[in-house]
């Protein structure tokens, strides 16, 4: 058990450090790379919790596909080292205010509920098997079929939107 705890602590440090690096690096490409590292550490958290499917999906979808697209756009626009412009002056105080509120709320909840038994039960070890994948697929496609289909239609519409937008640009040329 203690080895799990050590891994958890080290990973938490890495996750926090990469998140901070993402926020504070000047170069957009470095920010994106820190975010990739952050996604990978989150995937390892899932592995620690005994959810290999979610972990692999996290790496494939977020670290693999989405962040490659981010990098692609950053590089294509040549936006990796834009000078820091302060185009939205109200943004900084607003962000600080909101994050302070969020932090206070989180600490309040933590202190308030510390006594009560709020801890999430650890996942069943037997879930760490092929059957859990089968069960997940069963519940996804039986109980949650409508949300699933709605999500796919949403993605399809987004894709069509992108196609239509680029089409118009071509005709205007």
């Amino acid at each position, binding site marked *: 058990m203690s080895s799990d705890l050590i891994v958890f602590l080290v990973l938490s440090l890495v996750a926090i450090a990469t998140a901070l690096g993402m926020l504070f690096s000047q170069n957009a490409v470095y920010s994106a790379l820190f975010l990739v590292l952050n996604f990978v550490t989150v995937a390892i958290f899932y592995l620690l919790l005994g959810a290999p499917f979610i972990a*692999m999906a996290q790496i494939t979808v977020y*670290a693999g596909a989405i962040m490659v697209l981010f990098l692609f756009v950053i590089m294509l626009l040549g936006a990796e080292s834009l000078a820091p412009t302060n185009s939205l002056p109200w943004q900084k105080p607003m962000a600080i205010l909101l994050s302070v509120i969020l932090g206070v709320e989180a600490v309040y909840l933590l202190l308030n509920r510390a006594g009560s038994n709020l801890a999430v039960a650890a996942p069943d070890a037997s879930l760490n098997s092929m059957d859990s994948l089968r069960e997940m697929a069963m519940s996804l496609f039986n109980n949650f079929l409508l949300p699933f289909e709605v999500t796919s239609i949403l993605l399809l519409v987004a894709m069509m939107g992108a196609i239509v937008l680029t089409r118009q640009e071509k005709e205007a040329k």
Partner: protein
Amino acid sequence: MIDWTMWVEWIVKGFVLCLILLAGFAYLTLYERRALARIQVRVGPNRAGPQGLLQPIADAVKLIFKEELTPGKVYRIVFFLAPILTVVPSLVIAAVIPLGTSFNLFGREITLYVADINVSVLYLMSIASIAVYGIVLAGWSSNNKYAMLGGIRSSAQMISYELALGLSFATAIILGDSMNLTDIVNAQDTMWFVVIQPVGALIFWIATLAEVNRAPFDMPEAEQELTAGYHAEYSGMKFALFFMAEYQKMIVICMILATLFFGGYLGPGVDKYPLLGPVYLFAKVIVLLFGMIWVRATWPRIRYDRLMSFGWKILLPLSLAVAFITATGILLADMLNNQLYIWGIPALSIISLFIAIAFIYRDLRRKSHGRV
């Protein structure tokens, strides 16, 4: 608690796997050069050692002693990281591929794979999707427009062909009824999946050619247009790492293809003598690798806009159709309890392949891709 012998076994197996891949890389370069030479009616490298067998060692020595230049205006950290990020995925992806069943050594059962995880197909996909970073970052950090174009091309290409690749993985998962590669291999005991789903295997093969940037999809390093593409600024051992990654990826995807569709380590007598398993897998990999070399020797490079059209307009719909046909066939055979429905899968898949070829002729002809 896992005992320490388990750790020793893991470390030894991982080490041996890396060594196999490294030696495989060295001799694959020789194999490719000799085979290419034969196809082009040349002799090929045959001076170093008998039949040129020492050529890879001579190449390695040459590359180690080459001067390593680091251009002045590169993004230094990423420039050094990129070759490593390219090589590591090509090594770790092999961890889940079963090389055989298991054998006894000193009274201890030793399994012929490094890791047997139940989502190994997903593991393959996630590592494959991470592999693009090395190339993209190499292109960007070189601070050179040709390298940058190569990196951008490769990222666009890999994202596009990953969809078809994932769907052809799905056909093998549906046929094998598992995400575990060992289960998928065992499900092919009576019949290889390439017989049931030849089109799925073909799509997998084409998509992986694009994923590892091999001819005819080697646009990221098209010499005529981009000098050497993403590795234009790399020299010495750093270049060798990119070279190594490309050939190791070739070996690994042939291993995956053999595992998913060609019965993996299965072959006559493998139940009795489990050590035959790696031999069968090795033989299948050599045959599949020859296919890749053959393609490189005979096909011209495809133009970039056509490569994109081919990936999105032909390969993706075809792989969707093939996944749908496979799932329907399996479902019908299960529900009606009639194994004959299984044979609808190859029939319908091949029909859809011919429809796809008709669309290639209609949409990808020179005329429809003329200058606007």
